[in-house]
C-alpha cells in the first residue's frame, strides 16, 4: 500500500450516512497536526441520487487543486459510490468499503481492499448512525497518517456544542473501527 505523506481521499455514500462529517473530521484532524488540508463537498443534484461525496486532502505541501481526481484512498459506504469511484483509485491505493451495504466483488487487482461491515457493527452497538466513525477508525489504523489522539481532539472541535453529549459514543465507534 502507498504510505504517502499525502492523502487525497474521496469519501462517498448516501446522504445521511455522515459522509461530509467524516471528511470534516479528517480535515480538521490534519489541521490540528499542522498539515495542509482542504475539504470539498459535492453540493449538486447528485446528493439526492446516492453518491454524496467529499474530497479531502491532507498534505505536507500547500494544497493545489482541492478536487481529487485519483484518490489515494476511497472510503465507499454504498454501491453507487463504489461503482462511481472504483476505477479512479490510484494504483496501489486503498479502498475501505462498508461490506454490510456493498455485496459486489471488486474489479481492481492493484489496490488494497478492506471490507468492514461498518453499518452492521454500528447497529450492533446501538448507534446505527455512526458507521461513518467506524470507517474513519479503520482509516486511521490503515494509513497511520494521523493518530487516534489527534482525531479525538478533532472530534471535540467538529461536534457542535449542543451535541457534546454524543462525544463518548463517537469515540467508542472510532475505536471499534480501529480495532477491527
Amino acid at each position, binding site marked *: 500500500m502507498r504510505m504517502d505523506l499525502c492523502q487525497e481521499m474521496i469519501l462517498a455514500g448516501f446522504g445521511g450516512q455522515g459522509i461530509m462529517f467524516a471528511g470534516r473530521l479528517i480535515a480538521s484532524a490534519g489541521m490540528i497536526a499542522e498539515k495542509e488540508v482542504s*475539504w470539498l463537498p459535492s453540493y449538486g443534484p447528485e446528493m439526492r441520487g446516492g453518491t454524496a461525496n467529499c474530497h479531502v486532502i491532507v498534505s505536507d505541501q500547500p494544497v493545489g487543486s482541492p478536487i481529487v481526481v485519483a484518490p489515494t484512498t476511497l472510503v465507499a459506504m454504498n454501491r453507487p459510490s463504489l461503482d462511481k469511484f472504483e476505477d479512479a483509485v490510484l494504483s496501489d491505493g486503498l479502498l475501505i468499503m462498508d461490506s454490510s451495504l456493498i455485496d459486489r466483488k471488486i474489479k481492481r487487482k492493484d489496490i488494497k481492499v478492506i471490507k468492514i461491515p461498518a453499518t452492521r457493527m454500528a447497529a450492533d452497538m446501538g448507534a446505527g448512525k455512526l458507521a461513518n466513525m467506524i470507517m474513519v477508525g479503520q482509516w486511521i489504523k490503515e494509513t497511520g497518517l494521523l493518530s487516534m489522539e489527534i482525531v479525538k481532539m478533532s472530534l471535540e472541535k467538529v461536534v457542535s456544542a449542543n451535541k457534546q453529549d454524543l462525544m463518548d459514543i463517537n469515540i467508542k465507534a472510532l475505536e471499534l473501527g480501529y480495532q477491527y
Partner: protein
Amino acid sequence: MSERVLMKGNEAIAEAAIQAGCRYFFGYPITPQNEIPAYMSKRMPKVDGVYLQAESEVSAINMVYGAAGAGARVMTSSSGPGISLKQEGISYIAGSELPCLIVNIVRGGPGLGGIQPAQSDYFQSVKGGGHGDYRLVVLAPSTVQEAVDLTMEAFDIGDMYRIPVMVLGDGMLGQMMEPVEFKPFQGRALPAKDWATTGTRGKRKRNIVNSLYIEPQALEEKNLARLEKYRQIEQREVKYEMQDCDDADIVLVAYGTTARIVKSAMKAARREGLKVGIVRPITLWPFPAAVLHNLAETAKAFLTVEMSMGQMVEDVKLAVNGVKPVYFYGRTGGMVPAPADILEEIKKIYGGEK
C-alpha cells in the same frame, strides 16, 4: 498568532466582513453562496449589526445604496443570476461614488444556469455589468485565507476611493473548507466620510447622494474626475502572484480556484522538464497588464485557463498586444478543468499543434 480554524469559504468571507467592521448586510438567497447570509443572520445581531433578507435582489442592492450613502460599512452577496438583478443598483452606486462590498460566488450560466462553480461572470464584473462608464475594483481570491484577507481589504479600498468593490469567487471556493487565520484587522488610514448623509443638525450644508446630471457638461466633468480616480487605482492597487516565470517558455494565466488547478498542472509539467510559469491576477480590475506585457519579451507563448468559454483571455491578449501568441483552454457550465487536461494543452503548444 491567532488560531487556525477550518471554515467554508462562504462563512469565512462573512466573518471577515464583520471583523473588518461591516455592520449592514442586505441580501437574497441563492446557491452556492447561501452560507454567507446564513452566517450573517446569526452573527450580525450579536455585534449590533443589521441583517436583512430583502424581498428581492433589486431591493437588497438599493438598501446597500442607502446604507452606503449614509456612510455605513455595508455589503451584499449573491451568485450570477442575483448579481445580474443588482446591476442597475451597482451602476447607481458607482455613479454616486459610494463604497460598498458586493460578493459574487459564481455559478454556471447563462440564465439560471447551474449551481456548480464557474468564472463566466468575468466580463460582467470587470467590463461594466451595469450601464455607463464605470469600474468596480474586482478582487479574485484563490484560497479561503485569501478570501478572508481580500474581503477585509475590500472595505478599505472602497472607502479610500469611494468605489464599489467586488469579491469574485466561485462555487468551489464558497463551498470548500480550508484552515484560516483571522489576523487582527489592520485598516488603512482613511479619509473622513464627510460626504455621507448623516443629518446636518442645522450646522452644515446638506450632503446629497446623486447620480443624475442632466447637463452633459457637468456629467462629463464628473466622469472625467472619476477617470482620474480610476487611473490612481490602476497605479496603486494592482495585485498579482507570479511563480516560475523567469525561465518560462509558456506563461500560464489563471485566477481564483482555477489558478490552483493550473499550479498542479504546472508542477507536473516542470517534472517533465517543461518550462512553464504562472501569473495569477488577484485584482481583475485593475488588471496586471504591465507584468504580462513585460513577460511577452521573454516567454514564447501564453496559455489562459478559465472556467468560461474565454473571457479574461481578452485582457491577456490586450496586455500581450500581439507580441506573442495567447492560447486559451476552458471548461464551462460548471465543469472544472483537470490538471491532466491543462498539461495536455501545454504539450500541444510545445509540440506546435496549437
